[in-house]
């Protein structure tokens, strides 16, 4: 089944790319922005049909490779 993981920078970590995107959007006329934070999205098709097990496999992947827990948080979503 397909499991998605969203990796985002933690609140206290500077996100210069997000800042530049914010400024660019602002320059394009999108004036109603408080903040932009850029993250990563993964869609992983796991050979496991039990949602709980599949999610826990992807969680393990997040902890061991996909996210660096010093600076990033992860969120796991069941997509199928």
């Amino acid at each position, binding site marked *: 089944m397909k499991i998605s993981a969203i990796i985002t920078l933690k609140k206290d*970590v*500077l996100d*210069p*790319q997000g800042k*530049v995107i914010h400024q660019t959007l602002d320059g394009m006329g999108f004036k109603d922005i408080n903040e932009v934070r850029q993250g990563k999205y993964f869609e992983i098709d796991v050979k496991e049909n039990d949602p709980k097990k599949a999610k826990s496999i992807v969680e393990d992947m997040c902890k*061991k*490779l*996909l996210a*660096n827990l*010093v*600076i990033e948080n992860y969120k796991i979503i069941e997509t199928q």
Partner: protein
Amino acid sequence: MKSSVITFPGSNCDRDMDVALKKFGFNNKMIWHGDHELPKSDLVVLPGGFSYGDYLRCGSMAAKSKIMNSVINFANSGGLVMGICNGFQILVETGLVPGVLLRNKYLEFICKNVFVKIDNKDNPYFKNLNKKVLELHIAHNEGNYFCTSEQLKEIEDNDQIAISYSNKDGQVEKEFNPNGSLKNIAGIFNKKKNVLGMMPHPERMIDKSLSSEDGSIFFKNLINNIK
């Protein structure tokens, strides 16, 4: 003295490091990332470059490659492991040294000479070095050192800061910080000081006709310390 330089797909400072180590007396071997066994070594170097194309996060893939299990065991048993630039990024991804390297503050690739103050000489890398400031070269996009406040306290309490960006007199000020690194940190140790990660490239400073000689001073001192 035996050294090993690990080559990952995308490493590009591995051969410069090989030249530098041999020039100052190391019997160096190039080791492929897919190997399992590290040969008997007095020093292991993770070189600069763009391992795995900097995919996901710089150094994250290389940190999980086959040879790294041996490198981690070697480091945990007290062996000297030095990571330069991308090698430093790989070291933080293995957890051998604390923190992470974020993108440079102003999102630009920085390629220039810098001065770094040596903060700690009580270790095999800088012991007996008769200079307090070195002129070295940096070339990186992700050299902005960051760690949590708890980690920083631990790093400072254990004297783990190795080198800091400074001026030529060794003054560590914000204006000499090229990339936004926390506390101007350019290099750090693990707790036991046998693992060193640093952004500057000493191997680019070993030929009088091309550069300063501060890399030569560093390598000569290093081999004498290991002997």
